[in-house]
Structure formats: structure tokens, C-alpha cells
């Protein structure tokens, strides 16, 4: 949400800078509030991410640190400093910095958040598809041999656009939903109509791009992590011309033996993953057998119910977003965007779709890699901190859940308050010769 909102706010501010139209200034400041609330929560919870590898996964950290630490350190040095410094300059620099420099600050924040996503995804992609390393036989740890292979891993080259355009979709749907809520109540219609009209085509485009890169990822994953793709489809046996399952329910167990319900599209999966009517799609049992041959005896199958449903929810949410924004574009063409109550209601509900897709997407890609923490190299169970007790883990996890729940509650409350309050009123024409206090800009920040 923050990645998308920083870009959106920078875009609004650019339009203001270019046109001088006060409407865009009010948009910048209104949407900027949501960006700040979202960033505040994102920044403080991000600290945990930087530390938790060493805390919970000390064996993993020793094993991969030579490789995994580098993108993390680069993220801190190149991206975190950039976004945190320039967000301070942007927030407190209204009227103090020149308009051009202030606008540059907005873009640097947007750039910093995107760059940070790149580095963390490069690190994550190495866990999905390790490259540019060798195993040091003296220490038994993975050792970096080529940093460029890690930074330009084929996995991250697809995961990054998928994630970043997904982030833009998330912010786009938020802006669209809030605009719809306000249009429905006939409040500040000019500002929200402009926002909706601006954000709608962008969101539709980025959602489609996200889906395309997602499809590319699926094809790549078929080569790199065949088990994850087979598990996503719950396809147990290698099949020629495989059908695509839309909705299936099975008994609640690790590897269900039978299905209670199953709705399928004939040949659907074969077409999606091989682009041919009778293409062959690999099944879980065959991949498992191949992995047993390669890595020794064991069970290499993730929890099928989780991978199957998280994948479907992600894709389903994505499809709904695309349909919703297409419908919005059609209404916009018909000049009914501001009047269609039905669309506005759907757009408000649509705020949650990208959030759902984001959650389920991450659950899918991480759960689908199990039992591996680094695919093919280290198992999750072997990567944890050996002396950290279950009590400590439960205690800290409970603590984080409680604190995060409070943050989310407060964040949502603030969002609702800002929505109800609406944007600032347009400025009255300044009385001739009225002096503006030297420090009046201070009131602009908090």
C-alpha cells in the first residue's frame, strides 16, 4: 500500500507542479495523509523483518548469510535511508523547500520504497531459486560467487514487477474505493471525480500487467519449483491435456485422498501452463518421486489445501480487480462513473481485493516452497534457532500479533477519520498584502 501510495502522491504533486491547478494540490495533501499513516506502520514493523532472521533462524542465517545478508544490507544503505530521510523532508518541507525540490523529495520516497522492494525480493528469490553460490566444504555453508547472479536472478526479474505492479494496484484500488465512497455521498465531487478518473485507467493497466507477470512466474516456477506449481493445482498425477480446477473441497488433512466437490475446465491447465491443448503437466507424485531421487528419502509435498486455495484466492482476486476496473472504464466512457451507485459499492468492497491477493500470494509462494527454507539446499526445520525455546517464540509472536493488531486498528480508524473529514477546503484568495508568518509552514506537517 505504501509503495503504491508514495507513487500516487508523487504523481498528483507532479500534476500540480505542471498545471498549478489547486485541485491537484488538495489531492496531493489528501492522499498524502493515507500515505503517511500507511508508511508510519510500514516503517516501524519493518524493523522486525530486519532482525527476525537472526532471532528465529540462526542456523539459516549462518548458512545463507554470505549471500542473503548482502541484499539486506544494500536495502538499508540504498533504500531505507532514502525513503526515511526524504519522507521527513517531504512532510516537514512544505513551503520551506522550493516546489521543485519538494516534488523531487516525493519521487525519491517513491523510488526508495520500490528499490527496497527490489532488494528484499532479490533476497527472497534466492530462497526460491538459489543461484550464484557454491557450498563451502570447510564450513558447510553457502558462499556467494557472483553478486550479479543474485541481484538479477531470473526469479526476481519476474517477482519484482509482479509485486511492484501489485503494490500499485493495491493503492489504486484504495484510491478508487475512497473516491467512490465520497462520490456516493456527493462530497467534494470534483476532487474525487478527478481522482477516480485518473486512477482508474492506471489501476486497470497495472492489474493486467501484474497478472501477466504472474503468469510468467508460473511458467518459470514450473521449471524451477515444479512441486509448487503442481501443488497450486492439486494435480496429483502427471496428466496430458490436464483440466483446470476452479473449485474443489477435500477432507481436512495433509494429503487428501479424495475430493468432495470439484469443478473443472477441460484442458484448461494444459493450455495455461504449456500453451497447447494436449500439453503434459507434471503431477505431485511424480515430482515427489523425482525429488526423493535427488535429495534422498522424505516427503517433499507442501500442504495441498493451503497452496491450492491461496493460489485460487490470489488469482480470483486479481481477476475480479481487472473486471471491476474494466467495468469502471466502461462507465467512465458512458459518463456514469460518478452516478452509478452499484459500481461505487463494488469499488468500496474492491479495496480489500488486492489486500487479499497480496496475503494469499505470499502465503502461496512461501508455503509452496515447504519443506524447504532454501529450495533444494536447506530444510525449514533445520534452519531454526536451536536454543530459542517454544515459549519464547510463542511469547514474542503473541506480542507482535497484539501490537500489530493495535496498529492496524488505529490505522483503519485514522483512515476512516480522514475519509469522513475529507480534503482541505480550497484556499480563499489571499487578502492583498496579508503577511504570512515565517513559520506558518510548520502547521502543514502535523
Amino acid at each position, binding site marked *: 500500500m505504501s509503495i503504491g501510495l508514495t507513487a500516487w502522491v508523487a504523481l498528483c504533486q507532479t500534476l*500540480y507542479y505542471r498545471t*498549478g491547478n*489547486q485541485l491537484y494540490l488538495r489531492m496531493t*495533501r489528501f492522499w498524502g495523509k493515507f500515505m503517511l*499513516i500507511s508508511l*508510519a506502520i510500514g516503517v516501524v514493523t519493518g*524493523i*522486525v523483518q*530486519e*532482525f527476525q532472521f*537472526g532471532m528465529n533462524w*540462526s542456523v539459516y*542465517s*549462518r548458512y545463507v*548469510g554470505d549471500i542473503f*545478508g*548482502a541484499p*539486506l*544490507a544494500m*536495502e538499508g544503505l540504498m533504500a531505507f*535511508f*532514502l525513503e*526515511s530521510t526524504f519522507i521527513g*523532508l517531504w512532510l516537514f518541507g512544505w*513551503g*520551506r523547500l522550493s*516546489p521543485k525540490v519538494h516534488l523531487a523529495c516525493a519521487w525519491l520516497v517513491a523510488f526508495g520504497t520500490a528499490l527496497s522492494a527490489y532488494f528484499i525480493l532479490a533476497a527472497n528469490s534466492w530462497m526460491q531459486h538459489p543461484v550464484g553460490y557454491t557450498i563451502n566444504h570447510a564450513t558447510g555453508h553457502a*558462499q*556467494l*560467487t557472483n553478486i550479479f547472479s543474485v541481484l538479477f536472478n531470473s526469479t526476481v526479474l519476474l517477482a519484482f514487477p509482479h509485486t511492484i505492479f501489485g503494490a500499485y494496484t493495491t493503492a489504486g484500488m484504495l484510491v478508487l474505493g475512497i473516491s467512490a465512497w465520497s462520490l456516493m455521498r456527493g462530497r467534494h*465531487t*470534483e476532487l474525487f*471525480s*478527478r481522482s477516480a478518473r485518473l486512477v482508474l485507467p492506471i489501476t486497470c493497466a497495472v492489474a493486467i500487467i501484474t497478472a501477466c507477470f504472474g503468469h510468467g512466474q508460473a511458467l518459470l516456477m514450473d521449471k524451477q519449483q515444479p512441486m509448487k506449481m503442481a501443488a497450486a493445482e492439486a494435480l496429483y498425477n502427471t496428466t496430458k491435456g490436464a483440466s483446470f480446477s476452479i473449485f474443489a473441497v477435500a477432507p481436512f488433512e495433509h494429503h487428501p485422498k479424495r475430493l468432495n466437490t470439484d469443478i473443472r475446465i477441460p484442458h484448461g491447465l494444459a493450455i495455461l501452463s504449456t500453451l497447447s491443448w494436449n500439453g503434459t503437466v507434471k503431477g505431485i507424485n511424480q515430482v515427489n518421486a523425482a525429488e526423493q531421487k535427488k535429495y534422498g528419502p522424505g516427503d517433499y509435498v507442501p500442504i495441498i489445501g493451503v497452496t491450492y486455495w491461496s493460489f485460487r484466492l490470489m488469482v480470483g482476486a486479481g481477476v475480479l480487480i481487472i473486471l471491476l476496473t474494466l467495468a469502471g472504464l466502461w462507465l467512465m466512457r458512458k459518463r*456514469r*462513473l460518478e452516478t452509478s451507485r452499484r459500481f461505487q459499492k463494488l469499488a468500496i468492497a474492491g479495496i480489500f481485493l488486492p489486500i487479499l491477493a497480496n496475503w494469499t500470494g505470499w502465503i502461496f509462494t512461501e508455503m509452496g516452497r515447504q519443506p524447504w527454507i532454501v529450495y533444494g539446499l536447506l530444510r525449514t526445520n533445520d534452519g531454526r*534457532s*536451536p*536454543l*530459542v525455546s517454544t515459549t519464547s517464540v510463542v*511469547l*514474542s509472536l503473541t*506480542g*507482535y500479533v497484539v*501490537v500489530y493488531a493495535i496498529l492496524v486498528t488505529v490505522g483503519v480508524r*485514522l483512515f476512516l*477519520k480522514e475519509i469522513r473529514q475529507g480534503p*482541505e*477546503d*480550497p*484556499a*480563499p484568495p*489571499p487578502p492583498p498584502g496579508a503577511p504570512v508568518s515565517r*513559520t*506558518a*509552514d510548520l*502547521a*502543514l*506537517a*502535523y
Partner: protein
Amino acid sequence: MGHDPNFLQTLWFLLIGVLWVGYFILEGFDFGVGILLRAIGHDEAEKRAIIHTIGPVWDGNEVWLLTAGGATFAAFPGWYASLFSGFYLALFLILIALIIRGVSFEFWGKDDSPRWRATWEWTATVGSFLAALLWGVGWADIAHGVPMNAQHNVTATLFDLLHPYALLGGLVTLSLFTAHGAIFLTLRTREELVDRARAIARRVAPISVALMTIFLIWTAANQTGGVKASAAVVAILAVLCAAAAAFTVMRKQDGRAFAFSAGAIALMFVSLFCGLFPDALTSTTSHAFNLTLVASSSSHYTLTVMTVVAVVFVPIVLAYTAWTYWVFRFRIGAADFAGTGTPTPIAVLADKLGGGSNPEQPPEASAPSGAV
């Protein structure tokens, strides 16, 4: 495998030390400001002014910590793994403290109700207080050594880390950061706020000198293999610096006092780092189990890559950080926020930026025809 770190390993130990020192100097004063928020700010305008002094910078200050963590992971994964898993619950408490104080500054101004304001003032104070205390406890534990087995896994519980020496370390950082924050406020605020901040600095700074002196003598006494000359010299300089800060703040030389208190924080941590070198973490179970920098280090190739990145980006980061402090160097007082005559933000901006100053342009001119 020898025990003497090579050039790159030494360089990265130094750089990680610099990141920690930078973190404690910078976040040190914003911890102090957080702790003193309610003590120095009596009404809402004053509190707003106080929060404004660190508003633009606290977030950037915290990145020094994130980068120190990331750099340790990249350069000394073994150190990162042993330290962070070994201090599990202590770090958890610190992280929670950092989270609640961070959002406090951002949330505080988002609602007008007194209860809302009071809540986030208290979380800012308590979070800053806990973090300032616990960082000292943690680093005292590192200086002291921790129970650690042959696999370099720390065997201590949270309560094993809270021995008297470590608690004293916590009080040292708490008092140092509080004084540092008070001195910072004397430089960044106006009117009564300056006097109140200075009064607190005058009381706290001498306490920090006394605590630091005892702490550093105790540290030297803990060194079983004899006191290192480098660590001892730096420790003496740290105490002198802290004393100079206390002395100059009495004489109302606030700028100097700030430089000295920053120096005292820096030198104290440098002295602890000197004492640690060439180990990353010492074991109180057996010296044979000490984790050396060499044993915990990344490969030569990784260190080379990271060195190139650091050489390019550290100067850039330092440059824009310095620029931020330059932009926000002015003093802030309660008067800046008081009074009903404050124009609406948009009006101020329209005037300042000249964007909306064109009355000829009717606001509805470009409205879409479909708008209701």
C-alpha cells in the same frame, strides 16, 4: 584459521561500529526528546513544538540501526545469528519499544482529543525510555560476555542478561540519552522550552558522568586477560567528554555541550568495541567458545562486494542526511503553533508556492462534465 582479522574484516568491524555509534548519537537525542516530551512540554503547543524538533529526522535516525543489523548479517553472519538469537526476548522488548514510540510521533497529531494525545505521549515516553535503557543493558552484556556453547549458541535466558553490571549499563545509556536529548532541545526550541530543557540537562548530565565512570571502571575490572590500552584510553576520553558536556551545559554553552555529549556517547561505545576486538562475542562458559570475527565472517568476495557498495553509498547517505539537518536547523517554539490566526494549510501553500494564486482560473473550469 587464525584469530587475526584481515583488512576487510577489520574494516567491516569498524564500519559496523560506526553505524552503531551513529545510531546512538542520532537516535540517542530523539530517545531523550521522547522521554522528556511530557516533562518539558506543558501544553499542547509546546508538545507539538517538541515533536517537531525530531519529526523530520527520527525515522532516518532509526535506519542507522537497520543498516547496522543488515551490515552485520552481510559481513558477519555468525555474529548476527548468535547475537540475535541469543538476545531473543531482550531484542523482542526493544523492537516493541521502538515500534510503539515510532508510531507515537506520527499518530499524535492525527486527532485532537486530549485522551488520544495523552495516550501517544505516554507511549512515546515509555517506548523511548525502555529502548534507551535496554540498549545499554544489551551492549553491557556484549561487553561482559554471555554464556555460550561450543556451537556459538547463547545459553542465557532473559533474566541471566539482567545482572547488576548490565543494569548499570542500561542506566548509563538512559541518563546519557536523556541528557543528550535535553541538550538537543536547548538548541532547537525557543523561550521557556530552552530553559526547562537546560534545567533538566544540568541535573541529568552530572549523573550520567558518575554512572559512566563507574561503568567503565567496572568494564576494565571485568577484563580477565588484562586491560587493553586502546579501550582504556578511549574510556578515559569518554568520561572527560561527558564531564565537559556537563560543564558546558552549566555555562549555557549549548552548542558545545551537544558536541561533547555526542562525543561521550561515541567514545563510550568505541571503547566497548575496542574491548571486544578481535572477538565478536565472548563466552563466559569457556574462552574456548569465544566467537571470533574471523570465524563469524563472510567470504572475502562478499566483503569486497559490500565494501564497493559502502564506498559509493555511505558518502551519498551522509550528504543528504547532513542536508536534512541543515534544512531543519531553525528553532521551534510554542508560539509557532499557538493562536487562532494560523491560516489554513492550503492558503499558506497557495501563497508560498504561488500555485493557486491565479484567481482568474475558475476552479470548476476543468471539472469533468459527468460530475454530479
